[in-house]
């Protein structure tokens, strides 16, 4: 169920720098090092990153593990659309976003987003926008499994069709 998806390098012009979008959805453990390396550019001195990690509790209940699933091709498509929106707003070089699916043990990363830019303000703002947009648009689902073996499908508050008042 793993695979990657890179867009063509961005053309110069329209205020855009050269740079690459790389998105992936994978069952493998995420390597922050590899993702940082992929975002690194010899012409951009700043990399902003967001790492989402799984928590060990929810409203006082012990979380044993998490299971993620994705609508794989659409998830990658929406991640690449997020990259496009980032490039509309900020002058960034490389954008890397990788989501892990399957069982993700507590404390491990479920998503890593890295954006390089000549300017750290743009790199950090772009990462912030990117994770917000991913949470609102990318078809990936998380199920929490609790200590009593009960479980719950989570809902991002950024998701506009979530039930209000739901977790």
């Amino acid at each position, binding site marked *: 169920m793993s695979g990657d998806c890179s867009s063509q390098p961005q053309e110069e012009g329209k205020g855009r720098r050269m740079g690459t979008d790389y998105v992936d959805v994978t069952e493998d453990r995420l390597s922050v090092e590899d993702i940082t390396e992929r975002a690194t550019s010899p012409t951009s001195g700043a990399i902003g990153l967001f790492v*989402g990690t799984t928590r060990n509790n929810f409203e006082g209940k012990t979380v044993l593990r998490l299971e*993620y*699933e*994705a*609508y794989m*091709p*659409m*998830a990658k*498509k929406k991640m690449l659309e997020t990259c496009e929106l980032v490039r509309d707003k900020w002058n960034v070089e490389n954008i890397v976003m990788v*989501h892990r699916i399957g069982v993700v043990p507590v404390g491990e990363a*479920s*998503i890593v987003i890295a954006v390089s830019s000549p300017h750290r303000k743009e790199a950090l703002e772009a990462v912030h926008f990117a*994770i917000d947009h*991913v*949470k*609102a*648009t*990318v*078809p*990936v*689902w*998380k*199920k929490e499994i609790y200590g009593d073996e009960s479980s719950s*499908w*989570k*809902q*991002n508050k950024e*998701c506009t*069709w*979530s*039930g209000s008042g*739901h977790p």
Partner: protein
Amino acid sequence: SVLFGQVRLLFFAKSREIVGRKEAELEVVRLTTPRDVLQTLLQEYPGLGEISDNIVLSLNEEYLEIDDQQIVLEAGDELAIIPPISGG
């Protein structure tokens, strides 16, 4: 409004658990609306009624607006049931 063929259905997360399968086929009409498609789905899979206020549909990997006036379905189209997302 003549049935013309089948689209491929994909179920995810809670909708997959309710229906008990990941994929299915659905007989549809060519000119329809997201709301009518949802109604057809609920007739076929009544269990989805439990979450029908909190699902959206996607057609060929693009979200459908539930209030869209008209969509055109082609045989082989991929229609997915998307419960509230929780990635990130």
